[in-house]
């Protein structure tokens, strides 16, 4: 299983830049999700890694060695397409054994590997069926088995789950996780579904317009996104503009001295609505920023309550999700507590 390094990778189609200087590192035996809206270049990235497309500039390395000159069939980067593309004229056994047969593995070994893989994907005994007889979910699993059969250096999955019916998705997610853990396969999979990425991947690479915005564990991306795009991608967010001086944060840089202070950095603070607290009484803590506020709107949603509050010192209203079910009415005066430790400082 290989470590994949992508350096300054660019690709144009008819003058349209689909990938712009992409840099990405995937560790050996890691599962990384490429997440982004359609057209952000994620499928193109998979095709470049597999060699089906040739890059305009940049390099791709497996374990530190460039593979950019290697033809697709010799790279060992197996792409499983969205449409699963089982060869319709071959039965399941022949489909799974296809790659092994091409590299000249003898029949006996092929047969036993097929049996093993069919068990792994929970379809034992399906050797002699034809692809047309299988359901969409089963076909997808066979496609996965076929890719695993050749022991690829990296497994590339293009939207492996989103095409399936809702009830099959969880099963497929678990299967992909299970395979990843049993086979220790370096895996890169493409998805436009945030939840899918959060549930399956070790790390998520967020892409936008052909470049990488941020890569990190699900928690890192949720808690400390580097910009608004990533922050919004992973849930609701409140933004507070202000100045940072040392550990102190001043909303709207309201301290007049700050405006002339060279060391004060202009920052955008992002904090998730569920980290905010509302109380009737003021209490202070060094980590907390406390603002006098007024409830504008209250929406009851069972186990939680959504509030919109307007703080005296801030321009934009903030959203608060309260799981404590503290009962405030619209119009009520409250204190808003902002735990700055849980906030992320973004670049403007």
């Amino acid at each position: 299983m290989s470590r994949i390094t992508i350096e300054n990778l660019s690709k144009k189609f008819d003058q349209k830049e689909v990938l712009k200087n992409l840099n990405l590192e995937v560790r050996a035996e890691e599962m990384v999700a490429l997440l982004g809206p359609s057209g952000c270049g994620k499928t193109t990235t998979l095709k470049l890694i597999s060699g089906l497309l040739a890059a305009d500039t940049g390099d791709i390395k497996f374990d530190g060695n460039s593979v950019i000159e290697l033809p697709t069939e010799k790279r060992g980067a197996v792409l499983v397409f969205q449409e699963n593309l089982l060869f319709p004229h071959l039965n399941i056994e022949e489909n799974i054994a296809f790659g092994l047969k091409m590299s000249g593995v003898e029949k006996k070994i092929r047969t036993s590997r097929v049996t093993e893989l069919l068990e792994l994907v929970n379809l034992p005994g399906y050797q002699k069926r034809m692809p047309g007889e299988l359901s969409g979910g089963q076909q997808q699993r066979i496609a996965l088995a076929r890719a695993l059969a050749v022991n690829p250096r990296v497994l590339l999955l293009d939207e492996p789950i989103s095409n399936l019916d809702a009830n099959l998705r969880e099963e497929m997610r678990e299967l992909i996780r299970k395979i990843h853990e049993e086979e220790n396969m370096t895996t890169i999979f493409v998805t436009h579904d945030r939840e899918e990425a959060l549930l399956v991947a070790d790390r998520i690479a967020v892409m936008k317009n052909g470049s990488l915005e941020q890569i990190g564990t699900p928690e890192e991306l949720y808690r400390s996104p580097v910009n608004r795009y990533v922050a919004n991608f992973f849930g609701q967010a409140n933004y507070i503009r202000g100045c940072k001086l040392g550990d102190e944060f001043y909303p709207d840089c309201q301290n007049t001295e700050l405006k002339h202070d060279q060391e004060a950095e202009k920052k955008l603070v992002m904090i998730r609505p569920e980290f905010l607290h509302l109380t009737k009484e003021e209490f202070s803590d060094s980590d907390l920023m406390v603002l006098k506020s007024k409830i504008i709107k209250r929406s009851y949603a069972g186990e939680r309550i959504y509030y919109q509050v307007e703080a005296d010192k801030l321009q934009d209203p903030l959203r608060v999700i309260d799981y404590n079910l503290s009962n405030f009415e619209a119009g009520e005066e409250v204190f808003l507590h902002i735990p700055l430790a849980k906030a992320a400082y973004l670049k403007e």
Partner: protein
Amino acid sequence: MFKKNIYRKIILYALIFLFAFPLLLLLVWAFSGRWPWPNLIAESFSLEGWRYFIDPANGAVESLATSVIIGVAVTFITLLISIPAGKAMGLYDFPGKGAVKILVLAPLIVPPLAVTMGIHINFMLLGLADKFIGVILVHLIPTLPYSIRIMTHTFEGLGDKFEAQARVLGAGPLQRFIHITLPLISPGLFSAGILVFIISFSQYLLTFLIGGGRIITFTMLLFPLVNSGDRMLAAVYSLVFIAAALIFTLLMERVLVNPAEKRDHFYI
């Protein structure tokens, strides 16, 4: 509504009759002995025409074999050229594609007579005239447009994803062609093959001009029979021709073609 349907059916069956009746007439003539005007049925029936056909001295069976050999060779070469051409036309966009499309289809419209008369002298100079190879080459002109068009449609329908999938699984160019592309295009390949064979099998003028009377295909014998008005013999030869073409078609279809795939290709 019900009445209307009946009238439609009558019209259609009349059409079918109109097209099937001449074939029936052909069949009766082929077995007739004496059949003078104005009799509606022959006075006597005989197998004389068939005996004439089988008699090796008349060279009919031999010419049939010549036709089949040329037809098979033309089919093989045409398909060999059309597979890559159809792939290029069906899967890729490239500068000049419009012009290539016109060039490929042009032989359907431009009279083959004019083309053949134009190249004849060069065939003579190159020593291709009056030879098998010359006749085979000239048959490529009317057959290529059809087979390239069918292969283009086939590749358009298939796309290049299966090949890409085979490629990432480690299959080299030759392996991909043999194990993936060839089996997947085979329905189109066989419809094209049938059409090409029959077009070659039916050629008269091109064979006559380039073959110079040395290459005797079956149509070389049939044409003078029709021209001289020998109805009985002409009917026998025609039936043999139709039977041979039909057997070839059915054989290819039964063995190899999925009937749903072969429709929208026409030949006048």
